[in-house]
């Protein structure tokens, strides 16, 4: 069956269809969206702090849908460009650090097989 959407993996318009994910399993979708809504509500962290965390995590998991959604959301919640970029750097630092810290494992291994 021909489907234009199969020509590429990501389509910006698909973000709007996220709410339709229940088509193949309504019960779990309902549970997910209910949980999702509760997670992002004001709590011990403000909705804006949560939005910045979501923006950082979006970059770590490299989800273009999430980056679109939370760049808009954080801007709407009054975050400045500097705050958003600092959040992205936190994500980059953790992701970079996570790679680099494995260098210790490399060093351990090299030392263990070296004279």
């Amino acid at each position, binding site marked *: 069956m021909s489907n234009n959407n199969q020509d590429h993996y990501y389509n910006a318009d698909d973000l*709007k269809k996220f709410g339709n994910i229940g088509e193949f399993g309504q019960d779990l979708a309902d549970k997910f969206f209910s949980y999702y809504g509760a997670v992002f509500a004001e709590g011990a962290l*403000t*909705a*804006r702090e949560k939005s910045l965390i979501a923006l950082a995590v979006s970059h770590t998991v490299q989800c273009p849908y999430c980056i679109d959604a939370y760049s*808009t959301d954080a*801007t*709407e*919640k*009054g975050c*400045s*460009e500097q705050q958003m970029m600092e959040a992205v750097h936190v994500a980059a630092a953790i992701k970079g650090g996570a790679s680099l810290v494995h260098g210790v494992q490399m060093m351990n291994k090299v030392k263990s097989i070296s004279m």
Partner: protein
Amino acid sequence: MIKKSLASRHSGLSSSENQLKLLEAEGAFPNFSDKLLSAGLFPLKPTAINILQVNLGKMCNQVCAHCHVDAGPDRKEIMTLETMNECLAALRENKFGILDLTGGAPEMNPQFRWFVAEAAALGVHIIVRCNLTIIVANKKYNDLPQFYRDHKVEVVSSLPFYQADRTDRQRGEGVFKDSITALKMLNGVGYGIDGLLQLNLVYNPAGAFLPGSQEQLEKDFKRELKLQYDIDFNNLYCITNMPISRYLEYLLNSGNYEKYMDRLVSAFNPVAAASVMCRNTISIGWDGYLYDCDFNQMLDLKVNGSVDHIRDFKMVEMNERDIVVKQHCYGCTAGTGSSCGGSTT
């Protein structure tokens, strides 16, 4: 940054007919009146008119990128003394609680101070939508804070962000700096400090996005303006940008038009729809014609009914009319709602 109005650039979008053609394109977006119908609000009727909003003219010292009036220094349309007298007569003969003055920069109308003094003598509460920079634009405007104070005018002023870059991208180079100077001058005569001298700021998103929580943004603005500039104000009003005039031009040029409209439509809130400002406001154009709101005014959509000019104003008839709604009205019903007084829910 744009430097001239759509009108002086002879842009196709300077025509309200062209704007409406685009906004009303069949099938592009769900019909706003159908949404109102499903919310039990169509035809939309006034609750009780309490606010007379008067647009004193399109002349302005700024050329903001999002301006729904297409105002600027190159616009010469301003209200005459005769029309102002007709507005005062309507104020005398009818029960309005609030006179809301807007523009352009309303202070650039040569009869502005006379009009405010006459209206103040009638005992009506007066709001002036002051763009702040007019206060420092010319020596002759430097005493506006004292003038406002003397007439107990409520000052409502746009400041899209508490940082210069985002503000200047929307309102023009150097606007933030001048706005801060003007805010200090207003604080200097008691505005935002003395409870009787209300200074309220307006937050318009500087781009293709909706305003966030008014409560949260107000806290941010208060904290940052106090911390960085020692400025006080009373309330922050979050206003959604309407997809008309120069903001429509921005949406089209930046490729954001469809997405923005989709966002407004999907954020339609029946509770906000029930509280739209056109239900308690009448808008007067610089030439005295009557409109349901300042946005309908800029789209040349006059009020329904036989009376369409302030000289013939009849409160009973106005309170019974059907309010004119079009696709741009989604801007007032999205999310927590939007009005000249901020969120409506």
